[in-house]
């Protein structure tokens, strides 16, 4: 499993994309899947940059793991920001308002549409958003 940790600023989306693409190329990923993964990463990463740290800059860690048995890749974005589940728009920490953390309706629509599995977990102070995509 490979990982990359970057600051949560929009400019780093290229760094992140290149890192992930590099891993994907090693996995014989189709161009189509790679494009879709890139889009999904953009949506999810920008969401974290805009909302996870309440206007401040924190860190985002991305994990890329090939699921060889399933011929798929699992990518997890992890941040230490405000607990928030962009999939259900439910806030695990009830004290925070909805508008503090959201993802664009279109963005999450595209992620949900293109990825094979999208799941969210809040654990040990970490927001973990995981997508699985067939290569």
């Amino acid at each position, binding site marked *: 499993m490979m990982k990359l940790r970057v600051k949560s600023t929009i400019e780093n*989306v290229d760094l992140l*994309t290149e890192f992930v693409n590099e891993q994907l190329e090693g996995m014989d990923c189709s161009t189509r899947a790679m*494009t879709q993964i*890139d889009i999904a990463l953009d*949506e999810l990463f920008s969401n974290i*940059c805009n909302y996870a740290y309440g206007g401040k800059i924190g860190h985002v860690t991305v994990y890329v793991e090939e699921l060889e048995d399933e011929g798929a890749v699992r990518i997890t974005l992890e941040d230490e920001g405000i607990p928030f589940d962009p999939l259900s728009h439910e806030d695990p920490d009830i004290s925070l308002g909805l508008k503090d953390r959201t993802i*664009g309706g*279109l963005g999450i629509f595209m992620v949900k549409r293109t990825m094979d599995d999208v799941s969210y977990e809040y654990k040990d102070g970490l927001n973990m958003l995981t997508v699985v995509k067939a290569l």
Partner: protein
Amino acid sequence: MEITKSQEGEKLVVLVSGRLNTGTAPQLDAELSTLVTQQDALVLDFSDLAYISSAGLRVILSTQKAMSRKKGSLVVRNCKPEILEVFEMTGFVDFLTIE
């Protein structure tokens, strides 16, 4: 992302290459919002565009609307299949002129 402009008769062709994502969309937005006020016919050439995210789609939609208001024309051309797929998935094919 890189933006290259060239005149093709009446039309201004904007060649967008690289990635049109959250990071680069504001740059294209700034460029296009100026161009819509000056041009009546815009062509977005996506032959070298790797992908487009929702932030990019918003830019295209707002450009489309601005052009429609002034009765100008916006054409998107040379889309790769992956880009086309995004347009289809989001219903953009219904109102965009795609060549």
